[in-house]
């Protein structure tokens, strides 16, 4: 029988959900690192018994834990992500927390990538035991221009996230800065170029001509922290296709083009296309899922009108269908940027972790939903394992 596992990273520890009967019944293990803030926990597809977890614990410094036995025992990184010590007299950068973990290219066992707050990219070549900063980005002369001020607007600090590796080329990577835009390298991180053409910001939309109330002193720029991608996904079947849930809309890009298309304009106008997360069908490049949220007024970031629903597209964003069967009629939670996971089964399973500590599952490609865990702490991230 099919075995499934979900890694649930929460504000109060790591929880692991297991199903041994093909995703019907789920059991919750005892919490791991109870009381620790776990930002992200990811299993290594190259060696599935290995799990890495990014942790920050109350007032203690940030670190990364590693398990080689499916989460039974854990070891701490000998050298967690940390900036170089500044020269005497200057203010040095300090890692607040590691936010994102991505296993390396399939042909590079042992390599992992991580993103942190303040925004920086890290690489490990020894399965997460030691981490080194990627100097081509972290120490670039334009670092301060490219990234958001650590005291900037992003709650809990600006983050580097959505580290995506081209399965055809280990030197070709993308990542996203919230805020700061999408970035691409073709030389393993030595040089980075922005990939923000077509993306709106809160100040300006390149698809819309300037109007009388468009600020003239703050115009749209190809780089800069005004861009705010919330979640970017690379399609595993066709790595030339990227989907993005941005602070300002839902986008799709098909390389080698470099201009994003706002496919969220086709969402119902009373729902809009604001959200944190986007998920992709592993075998269909035209199917994607989003979980819209209220981006009006003071940005409640709960579902529009408190009516939770996933929206599905089967035609690459030309049309969207609402799917809410099984979800509560009214609910006031958020699914954060790491809070949606998609499995590889047929039919595909989709999992949502909410800020209210609930895990919702669909095992029919998003058509219907049921709750498989509740009463957990605030959920930051869900990953299949």
């Amino acid at each position, binding site marked *: 029988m099919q075995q499934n596992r979900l890694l649930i990273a929460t504000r109060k520890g790591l929880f692991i959900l297991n199903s041994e009967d093909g995703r019907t019944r789920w059991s919750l293990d005892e919490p791991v690192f109870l009381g620790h803030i776990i930002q992200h926990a990811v299993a290594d597809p190259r060696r599935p018994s290995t799990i890495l977890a990014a942790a920050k614990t109350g007032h203690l*410094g940030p670190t990364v834990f590693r398990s080689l036995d499916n989460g039974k025992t854990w070891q701490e990184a000998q050298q967690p992500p940390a900036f170089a010590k500044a020269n005497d007299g200057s203010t040095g950068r300090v890692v607040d927390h590691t936010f994102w973990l991505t296993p390396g290219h399939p042909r590079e066992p042992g390599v992992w990538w991580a993103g942190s707050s303040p925004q920086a990219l890290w690489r490990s070549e020894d399965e997460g035991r030691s981490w080194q900063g990627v100097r081509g980005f972290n120490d670039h002369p334009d670092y301060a221009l490219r990234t958001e001020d650590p005291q900037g607007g992003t709650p809990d600090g600006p983050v580097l996230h959505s580290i995506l590796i081209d399965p055809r080329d280990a030197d070709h990577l993308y990542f996203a800065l919230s805020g700061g835009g999408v970035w691409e390298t073709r030389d393993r991180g030595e040089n980075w170029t922005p990939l923000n053409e077509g993306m709106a910001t809160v100040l300006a939309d390149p698809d819309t001509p300037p109007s009388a109330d468009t600020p003239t002193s703050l115009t749209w720029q190809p780089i800069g922290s005004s861009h705010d991608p919330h979640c970017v996904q690379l399609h595993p079947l066709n790595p030339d296709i990227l989907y993005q849930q941005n602070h300002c809309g839902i986008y799709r890009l098909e390389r080698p083009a470099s201009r994003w298309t706002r496919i969220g304009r086709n969402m119902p106008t009373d729902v809009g296309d604001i959200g944190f997360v986007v998920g992709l069908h592993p075998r269909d490049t035209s199917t994607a899922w989003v979980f819209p949220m209220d981006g009006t007024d003071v940005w409640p970031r709960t579902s529009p009108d408190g009516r939770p629903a996933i929206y599905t597209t089967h035609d690459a964003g030309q049309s969207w269908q609402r799917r809410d069967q099984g979800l509560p009629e009214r609910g006031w939670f958020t699914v954060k940027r790491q809070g949606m996971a998609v499995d590889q089964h047929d039919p595909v399973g989709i999992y949502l972790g909410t800020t209210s500590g609930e895990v919702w599952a669909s095992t029919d490609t998003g058509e219907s939903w049921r709750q498989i865990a509740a009463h957990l702490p605030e959920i930051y991230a869900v990953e299949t394992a």
Partner: protein
Amino acid sequence: MRVLIPTPLQSYTGGRRLVAAHGDRLADLLDDLDQQYPGIRFRMVNEQDQVRPHMTIYVRGERTRQLDTSLHECEEVVILQALSGG
């Protein structure tokens, strides 16, 4: 000298509240602690050699955040961590 370890860091010391460590300065003592209990220093002191916010260290009964504090004639170092939060 003896060092009092706060509960959030006792996972490093095998659950022990009191441990022994040595050093002429506070920085040396923290290095010695890290040798004995790998990883414990970075959770108290950041990469710029600053004691992290909400961590407090007492030497000879006086609070300090300076790693060059002398431990001359000091018999006990107390490390405390605020449990504030929610």
